[in-house]
């Protein structure tokens, strides 16, 4: 077990013929991901790293039974590609691109809700279930190890940092999910926490949040009902209000989304909150007892 993806996941790579798509297809294959097909409009009949390329998602699904998709298409085309994947019944649909327009993101999420598809991203590194050797996205292959800790994060490199520190401490992961750094993204902390709570293999959860928005506060509400321990780290304690810290969502606007509010809510929800990222593994170890 694990959440969202496992060894049965037949991955489609949309935009496989682009530079990024090609490179990460190779990386994902090296990790062990079962990539069954790719798409590249007008490129049907080609192969990328031995993976057959089709003009449409429909064709890739018909021929290879793909059931999940990771998108390496540029931001202006992400909406159409995501719609194509969602309409074809694929889930999860992982959108790597940065700079997807906000209104496009809202439409993608509304369409996904209508079709019961799980969308991860945009502006995410994706997700990984180390025990199934299944990775959809761009994180480095080296940081993961199988184990009992579920990880969910907003940001990329900070995730790798923490996941690697967990791995180094002997704390492997069930599934690691990057929600994405944009304002409007698919799965939320709560969506993922619910799945980790239900997943029998996950014994503790690490939540890596940051300032801005209220996703962490909403997560804190849900954590109250969880039976599994949650360890959190929130980046951005020293970020000033009104300055967007790289991520579209990472901004303290109109007094909302402050570090203090998040830490307070998480503590009240029953989570252990680490002051610094390097404190996370010890807290997880304590939580696992």
């Amino acid at each position, binding site marked *: 077990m694990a959440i969202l993806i496992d060894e049965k996941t037949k991955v489609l790579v949309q935009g496989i013929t682009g530079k990024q798509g090609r490179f990460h297809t190779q990386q994902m294959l090296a990790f062990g991901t079962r990539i069954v097909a790719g798409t590249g409009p007008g490129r049907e009949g080609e192969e990328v790293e031995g993976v057959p390329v089709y003009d449409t998602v429909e064709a890739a699904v018909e021929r290879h039974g793909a059931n999940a998709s990771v998108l390496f298409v540029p931001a202006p085309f992400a909406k159409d590609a995501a719609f194509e994947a969602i309409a074809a019944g694929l889930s999860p649909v992982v959108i790597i691109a940065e700079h997807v327009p906000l209104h496009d993101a809202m439409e993608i999420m*509304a369409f996904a809700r209508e079709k019961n598809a799980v969308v991860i991203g945009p502006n995410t590194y994706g997700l990984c279930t180390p025990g199934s050797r299944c990775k959809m996205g*761009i994180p480095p292959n080296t940081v993961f190890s199988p184990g009992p800790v579920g990880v969910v994060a907003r940001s990329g490199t900070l995730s790798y940092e923490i996941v690697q520190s967990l791995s180094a401490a002997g704390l492997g992961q069930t599934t690691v999910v990057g929600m994405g750094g944009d304002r409007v993204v698919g799965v939320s902390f709560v969506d993922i926490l619910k799945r980790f709570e239900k997943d029998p293999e996950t014994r503790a959860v690490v939540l890596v949040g940051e300032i801005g928005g209220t996703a962490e506060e909403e997560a804190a509400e849900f954590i109250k009902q969880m039976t599994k321990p949650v360890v959190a780290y929130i*980046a951005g304690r020293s970020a000033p209000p009104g300055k967007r810290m790289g991520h579209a969502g990472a901004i303290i606007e109109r007094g909302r989304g402050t570090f203090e509010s998040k830490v307070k809510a998480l503590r009240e929800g029953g989570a252990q909150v680490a002051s610094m990222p390097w404190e996370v593994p010890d807290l997880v170890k304590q939580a696992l007892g």
Partner: protein
Amino acid sequence: MKFYEYMAKDVLRRHGIPIPPGRLATTPEEAEAAAREIGPVAVKAQVLVGGRGKAGGIKLAETPEEARRAAEAILGMDLKGYIVEKVYCEGKLDIDKELYLGITVDAGAKRPLVIASASGGMDIEEVPEKAIVRMHVPVPWGLSPYMGRQLARRLGLTGSLAGQFADILMRLWTVFRSYDAELVEINPLAIVGERIIAADARLNVDDDALYRHPDLPRVSEATELEKKVRELGLAFVQLDGDIGIMANGAGINMATLDAVKHFGGEPMNFLDAGGGSAAEPTAQALELLVEKGPKAILINIFGGITRCDEVAKAIIRVKEEKGIPMPLVVRLVGTNEEQGRAMLREHGIEAFRSMAEAARKVVELARGGANG
């Protein structure tokens, strides 16, 4: 991208939303001429920061002469770091009541959100919760006219005012949607006798959707450095301290700032060299950072796809070609990390595996620099 008030008002006007008469002025003489044409005016600094009224950026003028003097006072004024270059001279309104009306994106609900209040004129933050009316807009249906009537009724508007309010909201929705806006706001939305008029306006367009709007004017509030960094595809935010920071990824960047602060240091900036952590952007970002002259620099690289030895090589090249006069601390982990750290040490650059140790060290060096 934020629009200046006068631009936002022009957009509203072209979409049929009533606004007061107004003219833009860049000199006191133009302001005087505007007031001669319009009558009594408010002379309003055109800046992208909020709170300009409290900061003296808005002055009332009964006569053209007063308008000239008001413009003289405001033009060139420093409002929160921004120099006022333009004033907007707008006909004074005899306001009976001020409403608030805005449309923004509710990230949690993943939908647009209409926010309205019968208590307008102040920052919506300061309006008591029970005086605020909220309504989500369904995607992809969009706003329907009946929603405007519902909102009007909840605000206590009746008869013609309710109809005008609903009409303005539909038009504001069209602006929000067709401009790919993050925020469009009328505050105050003024009731003047039997009419409703947009007395102030904000319009923020999603930067990521600007490519769809080639006809829109480009407005930038960024400093020259920020612009340069943005052109390189990097993200830079100026802070108040003296330790230059760079990391590859927004989250780890924030964490690095927090770590420096944790050990008693003061970060000078946020600088995201990109999650890809390629060697080239790292080098370019470092050059920019050196130019800013911090007391010390901390580079925190988690080498994912890119190899650490390549990153090290890029840093060394900057040191040799451009020179790095201040102490530099590098934290480097990932593929070929030991090789990378060894190369850096050979070139006299402090290199660490642990983020904590690197952060502690850079703070120490910056202090040393302050003492030395």
